[in-house]
């Protein structure tokens, strides 16, 4: 049985450590700074432009999230178990009256809280600037975009934990995280672009393959939240919204949730089997 108190004790310790991690501080400042800069870019101060410029700013923020959040989520996840395994701290922790799932969940929750706090700081600051400029978009759409970004961060963290559970050394885990980041952010999409160009892949297939990438799930969900349609993504976007209609957002959220849960379950299974060894 999972003792939530124990989970929180470990989570809180992890949260304290992560918040004081200099890389997280640098990332937070960089992300918040860029988000602030994007939202502060001067827009023409005339009628009809508020919504369009707001949508463009949100799209830029989406782009920023696509680059930064997976990287930091994967890296923090990947180093969470591997580095402590290397120093022996994990071994010592597991020798205490705690179960492995409590350790894994505690560490996940702690790092997740820190990452989401960092993300909220960046996007919240950008939101204030947008609101101050009289943003044309509605608050619900922005909140949904932030929620999708949080889900993406959690999904990447789960995958990072899986890498961490599998890796023997910190360096291996970091390498795995960077490779996975490249795979999701660049290689996967570039491969799909290439395949689409060479094979003239049907729209349905392109959409299906794209949706296997959690970054595309986030992007489509976030843009849909801001624009209430996906026509900006061309025929595939239109096909997606026409096909899934009102189920589109639930589908995106549920798919991202699967990307959170399945890697974490795999990480737990492997961690329970392997422990601190």
């Amino acid at each position, binding site marked *: 049985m999972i003792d939530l*108190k124990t989970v929180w004790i470990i989570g809180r310790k992890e949260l304290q450590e992560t*918040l004081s991690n200099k890389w997280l501080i640098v990332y937070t400042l960089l992300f918040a700074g860029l988000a602030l800069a994007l939202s502060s870019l001067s827009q023409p101060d005339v009628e009809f432009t508020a919504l369009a*410029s707001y949508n463009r700013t949100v799209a830029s923020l989406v782009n920023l999230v696509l680059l930064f959040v997976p990287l930091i989520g994967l890296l923090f996840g990947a180093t969470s178990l591997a580095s402590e395994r290397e120093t022996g701290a994990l071994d010592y922790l597991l020798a205490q009256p705690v179960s492995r799932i409590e350790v894994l969940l505690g560490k996940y929750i702690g790092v997740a809280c820190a990452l989401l706090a960092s993300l*909220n*700081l960046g996007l919240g600051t950008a*939101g204030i600037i947008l609101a101050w400029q009289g943003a044309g978009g509605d608050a619900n759409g922005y909140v949904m975009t932030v929620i999708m970004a949080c889900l993406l961060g959690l999904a990447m963290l789960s995958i990072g934990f899986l890498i961490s559970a599998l890796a023997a050394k910190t360096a291996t885990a970091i390498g795995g995280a960077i490779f996975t980041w490249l795979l999701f952010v660049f290689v996967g999409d570039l491969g*799909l672009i290439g395949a689409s160009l060479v094979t003239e892949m049907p729209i349905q297939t392109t959409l299906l393959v794209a949706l296997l990438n959690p970054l595309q799930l986030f992007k489509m969900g976030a843009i849909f939240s801001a624009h209430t349609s996906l026509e900006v993504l061309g025929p*595939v976007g239109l096909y997606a919204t026409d096909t899934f209609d009102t189920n589109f957002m639930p589908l995106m959220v549920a798919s991202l949730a699967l990307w959170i849960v399945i890697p974490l379950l795999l990480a737990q299974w492997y961690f329970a089997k392997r422990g601190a060894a």
Partner: protein
Amino acid sequence: MPRYWVGLILLGCWLYGSSSAVNAQDSRRLLVGLDGAYATIEDALAIAQEGDTIEVHGGTYAAPLTIDKSVTITGVGNPIIDGHGVGSLVYIRAAHVVFQGFILQNTGTAQHHEDSGIVIEAPHVTIANNQLQNVLYGIFFANAPYGVATGNTIYGWGEEAGLRGDGIRVWYSHRVQLIENEINHSRDTLIWYSDDLVIRDNHFEGNRYGLHFMYNDGAVIEGNTLQDNSVGAFLMYSKNTTLRENIFAYNRGSSGYGLALKDMDDVQAADNFFVGNREGLYLDNSPALIDVYNYFTGNVFAYNDIGVATLPSVQRNVFQDNSFLDNIQQVSMHGREVLSRNIWSQDGIGNYWSDYAGYDRNGDGYGEIPYHSDRLFEQLADNNPTLRLFTYSPAAQAIEFAASAFPVFRPQPKLVDETPRMALKLPAYLEAKQPMVATPLLLTSLLMLGITGGVVLLTIERRRPLVSKHYAPSAIKEDTMITVTQLSKHYGIHPVLQNISFSIAAGESVALWGTNGAGKTTTLRCLLGVQDFEGQIRVNGIDVQRDSKASRAAIGYVPQQAAFYNMTVRQTLKFYARLKRVPHINLDAALAEVGLADHAKKPIKALSGGMKQRLALAISLLANPPILMLDEPTANLDNQGRADFLALVQRLNQAGKTIIFSSHRVDEVMQLATRVLVLRDGQIELDDTPAHFAQHLGQQRYLKVWIPTTHWEQAIAALQASGFSTTPNGAALYVDTLQRLHALQVLATAGVPVENFDIVDHKDKPQ
């Protein structure tokens, strides 16, 4: 003759009188409704003469109404003409009719009858200030030239845009003027075969096509707003069209053009504002005629998905002094060609491009470097629109980056603007945006920052006593604290422990003795339940495999080399106290007990190895567990540290703690243990008292000692001084004696650091 003249005069007077009577009747005002003379409009029309005004007061009147006299019919107090869902409402079949001030509602819904609010079938008719609602078609000019529709509001019937009727339809009606009308929620405003139109200051919103336009030459379209339609305006097969100061905003249907031109010649488009459309301007074979040019001047294309999109054959369009602001794609070509057959700069005046990265050295307002539209991903997406899925993706940016870094990947520019303008120029007629804070978004964003603050607050230590109901000091449940039955452990195919069994009674202090790899640490890890194994282990009555967490609550564990988190000593102790659910604890006293009271605020990384071991001991004692488990605890301690540590553990044993520890130090075993388990090759070779253990050691032939080479001379001298024969070989010294314990004591007394030792038989002795 006089009679003749009198007759003429009388005739003249009669004619004059008749004429005056007619003029008096032109200005007649016939009242319908209220206390007027006529109950229905038809009654008034029946006696009305050309030029009369029929004033219709509030109330609901039946449809259809047919106006076949040149009269003015004015609604006062919003009279309603209601068709109750049948047919058209008003037919105007006389010239010079003015029809104004009515609410017209509920036409029929028969597309094949074109059921309309108002059908005009005569020239020079003016339709003004009416509200048409729930109508299939709104105002229908059918062969009705010189008509005017002004100030009308039309709201169409039906949900599906393609099944609605047209808000306004102009059919073979030249010189019609549509001015200041509002057309919402209809299919199109359809204008065919009608020349010299004026379409001014109208507002088209929520329609399929704001304007749908064919074979209409000489039209002037100005000051209109076409917003949130599927397509703003689609103009086709016409020439000599002027488009001025129109706003095409957020037209984002499946086509989503702000303005589309197909086979349009001699178009002058100036100072229009295209914002937020899928494609701001779409050109298809326009101009169509050879040697005809279309001119686009002073227009602004802002925040569209595509600013200007064209089909490959398009040429002879002149773009001058326009502004392209942050369109996802500034200009796009549907197909494989370039836009160089259009003109992007004329007379030294180009266009503003928000993605232009040049400079203006001479300060003339135009860049010195031409603007090239040569984005690789854009061109790939132009040829394969499926790729627009990757818009905003880092992969798309990577492609652009590769193209800009490596010219070999750079495509042929779609267009070149030789003199790009440096500054954005917005149409003067656009009103300034009202500065208004978006309160819901502001509050939401503040909430997000609040969440961040809340998360940070969670990490702040609260000063409250540690209290817990769980894992209170584990009570001693049985006399036998540890029972190990048939314990086996393999790493792969390599056996580490093979069916070992033993038990430890409460209060015992048991040493696990053996060389490196004998299985000491593995045994301890199995006892802790952090490693899977075969067999059974019970700790304080708890089956380790069933509930390792509960069994660990009975054990205080000190590893060979404790590793902690990046905290202070006190924080570390507090963290583990929480984890062990220690009910009440004085952290300072706990630290004082292991001699760390003065180091409470130090970070862990500032502690020596010995201090860390002492901290680990303090942690192991936190919940006052009945068992202490020590894995070579003094391996990293200096002599004094070791002595202090062993004395502390000895006191704990004397106080009743059960102790199990691994070591390969004889002095430790002799000082601490009440019983020794000797492990060799994963099996228990000896389970006996320390005294017998010493004898057991003596039965071996040679003592093999690993000592740092820097201490070899010192070791050999000390051993030889005590009568031992030594033989160095490889990395170790061989001591030929049956009194190996004594030899080790000699080395310890001489201060020689022994890294490791082993007992080997004569076969191992070097030759």
